[in-house]
């Protein structure tokens, strides 16, 4: 039987506010346990939450960016359950009236097509602390530094039909929140993580199958693997006559399997009700206008502009706009290189990204700055160096030998463009290779490459290739 996969994602993006959503404590990552938890985060008796306006601004920004309805009135609710790293015994979240409702996002698929994914809602909530199970002599340690960190939970419609689509959607959201500068996107530190609701149904069936929720997946690769393995499990189960039960499952990346955490029957009754300590969040039109004015150029707009303004292919434009830093880097390179967009695109998306990927670095950490790369491209453009020599210059810049001009000067890589300097070299080669000359003149065109190679070898690659071609053609035909 043919099966259709149905996936919806709940993404938790940690908002990049300086202080927590309901207290003044810092949100910085990596501090000593419990040094960034104040009385409010600890849930001490008598303390009260006060909403961080910056978190509201960021949520509104996201809402505007996905064309959603930013609610003029949203309400915080308490989600009640007991857990040692949940200090108050409830999490402050939003239930019935979230701050963002009904948006959408277009994703690009590998086959070049695109697809709209609906976003049901996005709501503000506080994160819990962390339970640490190692190293406490059989006890559990609690670190409440993360407690109260603002999260935006972004809930999609069940619109995705494969793990690849889910990953494309997740990457798109990941890119968007960074464009908006509302989340640092750091997945290792847990700033961006996702739960996946996965079900299968016979192709053509209208009703959804029973779903399983895969919890807390924090890498693109694991999302794809977890969904694929869960889909396989569900199909195998059904085909063997079994039934999928609604439950929460955990993905184990070591064993590449999902396993049950708790079933629907064991699920908590969270007893949501409006938090009486917080007033409804009322958003004025003027506030929204102000937020709107701070919206940056969004990835899709930027991609289109790159296609139009720089005559880039849609693919190149998509690669270069995957992150705001990369897009900014590319634009700076192009600017320094005097508008050589195509060349800049090739170098940024090709050699630079390749080199960065090899060492696992981000664009921001690149040893070759946009100014350096742009400067090098300028030298290709003005024929100071050839494209081939440029590879050597790039490598030297990467190794820290200075900018392009410094490297060219120090290594003597300046291209020979003076014909009177190239001609004697060509004459020598023709004189020393009479056999090849005869064969070439006899119709063996392929040998042309041999002569080019000889000339380049003799000039250590510095002769201008175009000039070499022209002069060789002239002399060999003579």
């Amino acid at each position, binding site marked *: 039987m043919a099966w259709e996969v149905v996936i919806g994602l709940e993404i938790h993006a940690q908002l990049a506010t300086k202080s927590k959503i309901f207290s003044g404590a810092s949100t910085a990552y990596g501090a000593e346990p419990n040094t960034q938890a104040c*009385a409010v985060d*600890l*849930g*001490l*008796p*008598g*303390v*009260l*939450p*006060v*909403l961080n306006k910056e978190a509201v601004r960021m949520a509104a920004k996201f809402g505007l960016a996905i064309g959603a309805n930013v609610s003029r009135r949203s309400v915080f609710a*308490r989600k*009640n359950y*007991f857990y*040692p790293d949940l*200090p*108050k*015994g*409830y999490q402050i979240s939003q239930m019935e009236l979230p701050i963002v409702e009904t948006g959408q996002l277009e994703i690009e698929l590998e086959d070049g097509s695109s697809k709209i994914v609906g976003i049901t809602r996005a709501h503000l909530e506080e994160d819990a602390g962390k339970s640490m199970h190692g190293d406490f002599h059989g006890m559990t340690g*609690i670190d409440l530094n993360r407690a109260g960190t603002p999260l935006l939970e972004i809930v999609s419609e069940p619109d995705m039909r494969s793990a690849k689509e889910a990953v494309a959607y997740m990457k798109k959201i990941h890119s968007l929140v960074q464009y908006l500068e509302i989340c640092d996107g750091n997945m290792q530190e847990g700033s961006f993580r996702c739960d996946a609701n996965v079900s299968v149904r016979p192709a053509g069936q209208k009703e959804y199958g029973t779903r399983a929720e895969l919890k807390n997946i924090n890498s693109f690769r694991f999302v794809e693997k977890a969904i694929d393995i869960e889909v396989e499990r569900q199909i195998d189960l059904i085909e063997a006559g079994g039934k999928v039960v609604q439950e929460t499952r955990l993905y184990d990346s070591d064993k590449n399997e999902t396993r049950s955490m708790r079933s629907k029957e064991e699920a908590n*009754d969270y*007893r*949501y*009700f409006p938090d*009486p*300590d*917080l*007033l409804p969040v009322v958003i004025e039109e003027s506030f929204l206008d102000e937020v709107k004015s701070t919206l940056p150029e969004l990835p899709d707009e930027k991609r289109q502009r790159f296609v139009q303004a720089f005559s880039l292919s849609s693919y190149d434009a998509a690669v270069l706009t995957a992150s705001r830093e990369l897009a900014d880097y590319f634009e700076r390179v192009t600017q320094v290189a005097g508008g050589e967009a195509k060349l800049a695109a090739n170098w940024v998306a090709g050699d630079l990204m390749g080199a960065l990927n090899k060492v696992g670095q981000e664009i921001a950490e690149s040893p070759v700055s946009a100014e350096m790369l742009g400067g090098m491209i300028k030298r290709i453009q003005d024929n100071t160096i050839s494209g081939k020599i440029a590879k050597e210059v790039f490598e030297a810049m990467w190794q820290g030998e200075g900018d392009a001009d410094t490297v060219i000067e120090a290594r003597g890589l300046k291209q020979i463009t003076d014909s009177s300097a190239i001609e004697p070299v060509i004459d020598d080669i023709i004189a020393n290779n009479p056999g090849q000359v005869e064969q070439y003149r006899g119709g063996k065109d392929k040998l042309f490459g041999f002569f080019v190679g000889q000339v380049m070898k003799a000039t250590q690659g510095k002769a201008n290739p175009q000039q070499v071609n022209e002069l060789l053609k002239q002399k060999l035909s003579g």
Partner: protein
Amino acid sequence: MHNKSIAELSQGLASGEFSSAELTRVYLDRIEKHNAGLNALVSVTADEATAAAQLADQTRQAGNAGLLTGVPLIHKDIFCTEGVKTSCGSKMLDNFIAPYDATVVAKCKAAGMPMLGKANMDEFAMGSSNETSFYGPVKNPWDIETVPGGSSGGSAAVVAARLAPIATGTDTGGSIRQPAALCGITGLKPTYGRVSRYGMIAFASSLDQAGPMTRSAEDAAWLLNIMAGFDERDSTSVERDVPDYTAALNNDLQGLKIGLPKEYFGEGLDADVGRVVDAAIKQYQQMGAELVDISLPNSNLSVPTYYVVAPAECSSNLSRFDGVRFGYRCEDPQDLEDLYKRSRGEGFGAEVKRRIMIGTYALSAGYYDAYYLKAQQLRQLISDDFKQAFKKVDVIMGPTAPDVAFKLGAKASDPVSMYLSDIYTIATNLAGLPGMSIPAGFVAGSKGDMPVGLQIIGQYFDESRLLNVAHQFQLATDWHQRTPAGFE
């Protein structure tokens, strides 16, 4: 000295007639002498009070004294006090020392007011008799075989017995006004949002409000001047100017329209109490006020509505007491669930557990709409009743409680009858309105006269008028001056 009003104490301190150290000593001596019999205090902070009094005297010598600098007080043990145990009347917090001061406490401290101790109360403010306290019941100074009311019973008793000139209390369903009535003192529950709740251990967040408990309306005005105001740490406190609450005290009451809700004078009201209240209202008529019969048709819904809303909120508010970070923790927990179950099972008393269970039930999936949501709708109806009434009248009056103080243990095993002690006060909390109780007269009891409270309810943020209305009555009567036998 212990019979002086706050104005007189302020004057005496300013003129150098006595020092804060002397004044504080007088009250500490009275506490030493009388508290054992009343059980009104959970903590006596004699050393801290003495040090604070000396500091207040220095402040005065340096010429920096405010009106209340050096006037001592007692805080209900629901307010967090840095370095001093804050028990909230519970075994759960018997070991809890807050690392910070509640805003109300900080404001009183900043005003230079020494804290004499912390008042006993019903556990987590849940009760109307002070019998649910882990520390045992407070005794009513008018008859120590009767209850002082609750939950601010300790605060009411210390003021009635002159163990402190003034005290703070909190009122969720009548917890300032009902004990004020039963102990013959003046108590004011301000408009919801008038006084910061920060550092006040939450019972029902949408209803809780702190206020002054004093001998007279004038004293209450003085203390409210210190307590009231917006607090950026409490989102539900209201950003609104604080008037000088003493400014309008002496306005005359000519033409004041007093609404008398028929629902507050019907079945359930003790006949003797009713006569005292009637007489007090007549007094107002003589002072030039006009009496208007009104109706608050949804009054009968107040108690059931309250007993959904308040337990629902408390079931969530009290979740933080889990034995993990502070408070009581059971011995040798076997695992996490055992830790939760036994810490909470052993740390909370019966009434608190009852309300947590009611509230948990009311919020459960499948019951939420029928209970919590319905209660919210009724709450709106109850508020609307008052809105309609205040189109016709300036204040509403009636009894504070249906009866005088009852015997200890008389209602302890009958929660519903206990809940009905607050039948006249609860609606005010549900609507968020300010309400006050003042001594209206006395009813003969087995051991002597027992005080009766007159309740005065006002419009939102109309505390100045309530205080004015109460003060004018107190100028014409001396019920509020009477002292229980043995505490003169």
